[in-house]
């Protein structure tokens, strides 16, 4: 489902955020990506979304080779991916409802489905009563849950979640993690970037650890590796 072949990402400023990364994630896998601040996790996610183009190496997602993909095809891959951004990236002049509905409009879901699925998704993340609010009227955690709802509403093939519980309390965090696990059980590939040691250690999933842009460990049923 996801392949990175010898991928290096050097930003125009000169920072090498990822270095010779080789990763293969199969369809249906649940993977944690961990690593200290600035180790390249967000860069990893942004490369998979083709928000960034690597300076070197080959990336393949859902059968599309990013080195050869045509500009017009990029939306097609992205529609197979549900993404939770570290800084949420909600559309600030649209309500909670419209933010989630937007993901469905993009894939041209008929309106009658949108009207049913969006409230259902908002109920799952506990924001059913806030559908009319604008992002600026929400707490940090509430915004994060809208972002999660938006990523999940289309039932995508792949979920990329960058620190999806950074602004959530333990109870909410666990609910989201369980939700992701359920979705994964139904066949969706899930990649979660997180700093939450407790969750990583408890869930016993594959854990990829980055350090200064290098994969220093990639273990099935692994745990959170503290830096020395």
């Amino acid at each position, binding site marked *: 489902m996801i392949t990175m072949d010898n991928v290096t990402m050097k930003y125009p400023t000169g920072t090498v955020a990822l270095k010779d990364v080789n990763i293969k994630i199969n369809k249906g896998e649940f993977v944690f990506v961990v690593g200290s601040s600035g180790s390249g996790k967000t860069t990893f996610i942004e490369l998979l*979304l083709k*928000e960034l183009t690597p300076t070197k190496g080959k990336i393949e997602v859902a059968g599309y080779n990013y080195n050869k993909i045509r500009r017009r095809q990029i*939306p*097609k*891959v*992205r*529609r197979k*991916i549900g*993404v939770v951004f570290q800084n949420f*990236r*909600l*559309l*600030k*002049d649209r309500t909670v409802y419209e933010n989630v509905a*937007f*993901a469905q*409009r*993009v*894939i*041209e879901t*008929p*309106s009658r489905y949108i009207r049913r699925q969006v409230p259902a998704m908002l109920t799952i993340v506990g924001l059913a009563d806030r559908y009319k609010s604008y992002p600026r009227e929400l707490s940090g955690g509430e915004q994060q849950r809208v972002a999660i709802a*938006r990523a999940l509403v289309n039932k995508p093939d792949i979920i990329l979640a960058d620190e999806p519980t950074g602004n959530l309390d333990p109870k909410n965090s666990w609910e989201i993690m369980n939700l992701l696990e359920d979705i994964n059980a139904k066949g969706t590939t899930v990649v979660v970037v997180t700093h939450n040691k407790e969750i990583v250690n408890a869930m016993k999933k594959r854990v990829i650890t980055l350090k200064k842009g290098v994969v220093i460990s990639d273990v099935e049923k692994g745990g959170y590796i503290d830096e020395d």
Partner: protein
Amino acid sequence: MRISSIWYSFRQGLKNIRRNLLFSLASIGTIVSCLFLFGVFYVVVVNFKSAMKSLENSISISVFFEEDADIELLSAQIRTREEVDTFDYISAEEAWIKYSNDTYDNPEEARAAFGDDNPLAKSASFSITLKDVSKQAEFVRFLEGLTGVRKVKSSQFTADTISSLNLFVGYASLGIIFILLLVSVFLISNTVTIGITVRKEEIKIMKLIGATNFFVRAPFIVEGVVIGLIGSAIPLVLVYYAYDAVLNYVVGRLSLVTKLFEFVAIGDVFKFLIPVTLAIGVGIGFLGSIITTRKHLRV
């Protein structure tokens, strides 16, 4: 592209206008200002041209004949020329009466003193006005070339002054209208660009979620066209009522002005103004949003 997506784009475009009210108002304000300026200036120029026209018509050429001239033939040769606007025959008697009226305090007495001996006996003439005074010198040469014409009298100085003024105003107003259009296009696309650039983060987010360029862009285009439409309708209405008001004011108070030239009818002015104004407003709204979004769609 489903029907529902098109419908969505339309609604979203209208919503955007409300949600980015500051920018919408700024854009509309800019368009209104520019096109209002354009309209006012255009109205002034059109009227000025019409005023120049009536000034030109006060400039006439007098043609005097040889004693044996065939006046009928000359008249036919001259009045059929297309440069000619008005054409009158003034007999020697009329000329003498006019001259004596102009010159003497008691013209009858003077005329009686001269008796039948009309001092201007040879002064029968044609009085001609031209459609375009700048052609006067050339036309005078044509007249002088006709057999039977003894003398052509014209005030080349006044004609030159007026026609050069005309030329100057023509160039100047063409220049200003051109600059105005250029400036309007620049200012309007400036505001459109800023309005969209401010939302480039939003555009990026939409693209990252998987929206096609068309899907992102359509609401912006609707927005641009609607803003352009509003922005060009307002100055049209403003110019219409302002012109009407000025006309009424001038006709009422400055009768001196209206005695001498006719204001151009509102209908004639708007025949040109409406399409041009709408084309600029809506055109830039449309093209501006297409061009500016393009830049931000490469995500």
